[in-house]
């Protein structure tokens, strides 16, 4: 009899611990793209800890080098949230909801920088780079692919034959490396990444020169996968908005070279939509 009672007690204990674990909540998965300096692993770990403590839920960051992979993760609903580029956001318009937009230099905007090696003193626009070696960031990048191609097309040339050779580095940070090392004679880069890198590795950015700056676009948005519950959406949005009011959050924002997060609006990305239309995309 005693063994039966013990057995029942064990079952009860097991069930109780299970429910307690369930109360802690399932893991929140956030996909990260190379839209920012995504190789700052220590900073990411701190941000994850911060979000965990704020959300009281386990948080997991999933890093993918290619935008396409992040798009797939969202479409396959393998992640709850993602920080993506404008272009993938617009591509995924029906699959995601705009969660928050970061403020860079006080504005929810960024732009494309046309960078050339510092030794190149003459280039003033992308037209001057005809027949050169050009580095693209990612085929789903706004500033690293769409903008330069749009500019070439606006100048009346064919982006497919304009350069002698093009290649993808799959990250904005590496685009800067490609120009700095002399592999590429020009590249278009996310202004936020360039400015952030200039703060931590001024030696690398010093080897490049900004030849031209594009118009402003909406800052790469944080999006929620459409099946995320309204409560989780709200909670996550709230935590991001509150970061600037929290000393630890503020510290993290500083390291991210950001000023805070705002809810944002889809209209921020109309400029990108216009460019996409030029290439026959919706």
């Amino acid at each position, binding site marked *: 009899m005693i063994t039966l009672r013990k057995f029942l007690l064990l079952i009860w204990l097991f069930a109780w611990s299970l429910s307690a674990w369930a109360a802690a909540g399932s893991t929140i998965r956030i996909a990260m793209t190379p839209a920012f300096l995504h190789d700052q692993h220590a900073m990411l770990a701190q941000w994850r800890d911060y979000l965990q403590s704020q959300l009281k839920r386990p948080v997991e960051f999933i890093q993918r080098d290619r935008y396409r992979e992040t798009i797939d993760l969202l479409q396959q609903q393998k992640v709850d949230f993602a920080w993506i580029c404008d272009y993938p956001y617009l591509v995924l318009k029906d699959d995601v909801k705009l969660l928050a937009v970061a403020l860079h230099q006080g504005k929810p905007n960024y732009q494309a920088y046309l960078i050339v090696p510092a030794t190149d003193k003459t280039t003033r626009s992308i037209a001057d780079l005809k027949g050169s070696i050009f580095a693209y960031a990612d085929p789903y990048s706004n500033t690293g692919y769409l903008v330069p191609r749009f500019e070439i097309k606006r100048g009346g040339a064919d982006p497919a034959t304009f350069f002698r*050779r093009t290649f993808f580095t799959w990250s904005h940070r590496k685009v800067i490396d490609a120009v700095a090392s002399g592999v590429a004679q020009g590249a278009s880069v996310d202004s936020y990444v360039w400015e952030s890198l200039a703060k931590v590795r001024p030696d690398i950015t010093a080897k490049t020169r900004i030849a031209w700056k594009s118009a402003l676009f909406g800052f790469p948005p944080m999006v929620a996968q459409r099946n995320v519950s309204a409560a989780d959406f709200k909670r996550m949005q709230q935590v991001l908005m509150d970061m600037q009011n929290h000393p630890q959050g503020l510290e993290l924002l500083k390291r991210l070279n950001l000023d805070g997060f705002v809810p944002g609006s889809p209209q921020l990305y109309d400029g990108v939509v216009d460019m996409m239309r030029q290439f026959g995309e919706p």
Partner: protein
Amino acid sequence: MRLFDLSLRYKMPLWGGGLILVTALTLSASFMWQAWDNLHHDLQKNAEDLGRSTARALFPLMLHDEVWQAFETVSLSLTSSDNAAQTESLVVFDNQLRVYISSDSQAHRLTQPMASLDAEFAALAAVMPKAPDADVFVRDASDASHIYVALPIASGGVRLGTLVVAYHKSVLWQRFSQLLRNAVGITLLTLAILLPITAYWGRRMMRPMQWITERIRRVGTADDASVNPSLYPYGDEVGLLYAAYLDMRVKLQQKDALEKEVIESERMAAVGRLTASIAHEINNPLGGMLNAISTLKRHGNPDLVTQKTVSLLERGLSHIRETVAALLVQSKVKSRPLNASDFDDVQVLVAHALKKQGTRLDWSVSITSDTTLPSTLVRQVLINLLLNAITAAGAAGQVNLMAQTDEKQLKVVIDNTGQPMSSDQLGRLFEPFTSFTNEGNGLGLWICYQIVTQLGGRIQADSNAERTRFTVTLPLIPTDEPPTPQNLPD
């Protein structure tokens, strides 16, 4: 002065140093040659290893046209490999021999044709094998400043391009010069240690030679001094030289002494002969004259004046006869053999003189049995020498006699503490009529000399500040032929 006239003190270290130098240089040169070869081989091998692993990684990247990742791969290979310092660049060419990617993109632009990069790449492009299954190709032209290792980027019979690992020969030289510097440093250090050792060794070897040379040069001069054998106590050739020198010096001295002795004895023999002949010549008429006087005294009736004159003549002639008799020492007299009691007699005979002078006598005689020597003559020698010694020692002086026999000889040593004799005196000591005092006729030592010589013995005198010593040695077995028979009267 010619080089070969230099002192061995310098020549030996110079030769030694020269040999050490030649050895060190030869060894260093052979090591350096080997090192250069190894370095060259290592460098090539490293480049090949680096190239092989990089080429394998590059294949999928070229297949998917991942230019940036290809760049990262070649850059990583360049910076992470052990031999990064010696590799100048890794360049990937596509099958059209255009730059696909290079670790040095500043120098090698993407899509630039290989032949247009520089003359060395152009030459490489011309000779490099292009087959998919080609092996590693190394171009190390003497006129080129780089060494190139070309490897196909191929898999499963499909070749996508070529990886060229280039390294500057100056790296090789730089590494080699470092080795060279080390080798030269070690060689110099070795020489710095060995040369002083050689110099020291040369000096050490030569110093005894110099000493002995100096001594040999002085042989026969007044400065001739013996060599202390402890100067060079070793048994090698130099040690043997020292021993030979000492031996030679002793022999030379013996020869010198012998020569002196021969001259001396010849001189004495000549004096003896002369004396003997004069004595004979005097003796014959002297006998006649004495006979005549005797006859005159016996049978003539001389007056008083004549008697006085004849007596005067007889005394004078007798004195001459005694002197001549003394000169003609006769050793072949019949005499009983000498024994210990003769020494006792001699002691008694000289006791009076000792007493008169107040001279002390130390007497030590160890003669156990009878000898073959004639007692009369030996007694005469002993008495002569002892009286001389007592006179020389003077008041409060000391005279010692030591006599002993062994199977072969009788040895008598008589010394006194009197005034030392000069070497000049010693040289003329045994000549007749040599007297250093006012007493005596100067024939005592002459007689001793004649007796000892005729008995086949030796008499020697030496003198120093403390003692004047006479040593008499007489053979107990008489020699058949005395050394100086010439001076014997018939």
